[in-house]
């Protein structure tokens, strides 16, 4: 029936131990027993989806004409900036991901105060260094610039003369920004380092425009209008003024994170109240449990001894699948639970296909060893082909879900696809091994009865 039974048993036990370890711990720590050093650590805190704990989801889209090609590297920079900006808010577990080629999805689980997050994301605008000549526009006023002229159409409250100023460079040229005190130690200055491109542009401009104003605007709104005191050639400079520690830091943050390479607009907002989620989680888990118990009873009553084996194998499947989901930080969502239940159905289907085959072989008068071999080898092509088609559609679903940041669709398809894969392993490998162990350790005199024929 099986040649290398011992190896199989060892492997299954090993996998089960590992899976249970992951299932029941919130963090994995491997410590070298000799030196007491931590060799390996992996956080396993479960993450609940927005539908379960409530929260905010926003979908941001590049605010450029639809036919414009967008560089994926720029999209990634924009994502990082949104991440940093919202991290600074002190929101826990916020996830910002690029979705498709022109969208970014942001999730803020458990968030109650949605307004401040929306505000800070929208504020995450375009930082520009503008040549305003001899004029120092008032702080907070809005000016027109010649950069990305298409999007300035929406700017409100422009200067009376509607002068369009020239943008020298954008915040994308800033390499780093830091706050320090000046040489006397009494007031604060902001030191900045430019990229090599930026350094060149800046050196040329400051040399030609000494004693003129260099206005810094964020989303066309004036933050500050320092005077160029002297040419800055090395790509390093500082901005001084009447800064307090707080205002200097706030300014530095605006400089650092305000430099979105692409303007973004909110195209979709979803807010889920926390009460809706907690209720659904308990109910769905309960429903899943009830369903599983009924199905387990059915399997045992209908298939008798192999049914018991199948239930054991499904338990091992559930432990393994749950461990895999936990290890890779799958977000637990309601459709995810449904996907998991469906993949359990697929796991059972593989077992049922095999058992039905075995019954046929037994009826045809084969001995038990032939029955087991034939049951597996004959059921395998249909198990393989049928599950592959389920995996193919899951992948298409996943692709669909990820272009629009539909995390719920993604969660469902990913749990379904992985669940089906793992179920293939348990049906083919685990069920068979367990069945052989059962057959070897108990001598069944009336096989027909034990197989429910």
């Amino acid at each position, binding site marked *: 029936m099986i040649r290398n039974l011992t190896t199989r048993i060892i492997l299954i036990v090993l996998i089960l131990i590992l899976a249970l370890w992951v299932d029941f711990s919130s963090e994995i720590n491997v410590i070298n027993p000799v030196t007491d050093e931590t060799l390996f650590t992996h956080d396993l805190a479960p993450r609940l989806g927005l539908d379960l704990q409530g929260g905010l989801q926003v979908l941001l889209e590049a605010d450029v004409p639809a036919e414009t090609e967008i560089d994926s590297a720029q999209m990634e920079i924009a994502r990082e900036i949104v991440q940093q900006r919202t991290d600074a808010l002190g929101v826990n577990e916020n996830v910002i991901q690029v979705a498709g080629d022109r969208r970014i999805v942001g999730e803020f689980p458990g968030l109650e105060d949605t307004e401040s997050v929306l505000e800070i994301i929208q504020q995450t605008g375009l930082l520009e260094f503008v040549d305003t000549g001899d004029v120092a526009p008032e702080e907070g006023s809005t000016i027109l610039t010649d950069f990305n002229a298409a999007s300035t159409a929406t700017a409100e409250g422009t200067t009376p003369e509607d002068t369009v100023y020239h943008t020298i460079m954008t915040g994308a040229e800033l390499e780093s920004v830091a706050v320090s005190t000046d040489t006397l130690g009494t007031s604060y200055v902001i030191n900045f380092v430019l990229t090599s491109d930026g350094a060149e542009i800046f050196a040329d401009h400051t040399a030609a425009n000494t004693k003129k104003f260099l206005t810094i605007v964020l989303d066309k709104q004036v933050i500050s209008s320092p005077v160029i005191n002297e040419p800055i050639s090395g790509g390093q400079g500082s901005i001084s003024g009447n800064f307090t520690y707080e205002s200097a830091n706030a300014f530095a943050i605006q400089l650092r994170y305000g430099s979105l390479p692409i303007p973004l607009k909110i195209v979709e907002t979803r807010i889920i109240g926390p009460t809706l989620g907690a209720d659904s989680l308990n109910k769905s888990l309960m*429903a899943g449990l009830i369903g599983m118990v009924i199905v387990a009873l059915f399997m045992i009553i209908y298939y008798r001894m192999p049914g018991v084996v199948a239930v054991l194998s499904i338990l091992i499947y559930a432990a393994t699948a749950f461990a895999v989901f936990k290890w890779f930080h799958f977000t637990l969502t309601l459709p995810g639970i449904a996907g998991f239940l469906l993949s359990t159905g697929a796991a059972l289907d593989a077992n049922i296909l095999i058992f039905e085959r075995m019954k046929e072989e037994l009826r045809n008068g084969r001995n038990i060893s032939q029955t087991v071999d034939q049951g597996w080898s004959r059921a395998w092509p249909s198990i393989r082909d049928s599950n592959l088609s389920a995996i193919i559609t899951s992948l298409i679903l996943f692709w669909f879900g990820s272009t629009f940041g539909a995390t719920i669709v993604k969660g469902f398809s990913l749990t379904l696809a992985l669940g089906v894969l793992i179920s293939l392993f348990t049906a083919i490998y685990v069920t068979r091994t367990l069945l052989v162990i059962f057959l070897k350790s108990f001598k069944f005199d009336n096989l027909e009865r034990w197989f429910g024929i």
Partner: protein
Amino acid sequence: MIDILSKRYFYFAFSLLVILPGLVLLSIGGLPLSIDFTGGSLLEVQFEAGKTPETAELVNLYEDAGIDDAQITSTDTGSLMIRSSFLTNEVRDSILTTMREKTASEVTVVRFDSVGPSIGKQVASRAALAVAVAALAVIIYITAAFRKVPNAFRYGICAVIAMVHDVAVVFSIAGIGAMFFDWQIDALFLTALLTVIGFSVQDKVVVFDRIRENSNLLRKLEYEKLVNHSIVQTLQRSINTQLMTVEFLLLALALFGGITLQEFSVILLVGLFSGTYSSIFVAAPILVLWEKREWTTWFKRKEETAI
């Protein structure tokens, strides 16, 4: 052995009986697309007990904010569901503030979904593409998997016809649900639909695989008998897998799983059942019908199998 296939025209009639009413409802009422596909806003708010305002009052409040298509329904839990065209976050905030002022009640946002009109259109077209790609992938996959059987592509086409049948059943259910339970076609519906497609194909493959195997073993058997034989052999598995396990799991989810997943699990329940049904009573009979080229003798056949 049970003769399943001889009554094939009866099954086709039965399928039509299930599919048509829902599709008629859909064609009268229009596709109940949610804001996921059309764009727009949905705001669900809960007021303090006894302070829930009149519908007209809220409609006016929306009109003052420049939104003149607000539709308001109350839910079982006493909250109000307001559907309207796309609200920006600023407009939503100002509406909520006015609501608090006018009703003198604390207003809790239970749920707020707002989808820009352009994104909705893109989601809808991408969804149609996803379904089309899935169908194409199925034909290619089955044709490849059955390449050693004569007329392999017939299996692929029959699987897709049965799949269209299942999709039609799902839409029919959606039509009935839209009429009686205010269901909507949203992203979750689409997920259920694609899952039904995936599992529908899975089921066809199991039946077709038996035909593939039997066609090697029983070369001399007439095609109709061969297919009938294969169906009967896989019948127990179909019943056990579908009715006893998957449907039980989904039924538990539909009954006890809470309101959020109810529509989703009912659609999966019906769709997956249809998937199993159509393997036996749609896909396999069409294979036989095709093999026998029955359309040439349709009028004669109808008399014979009159119910």
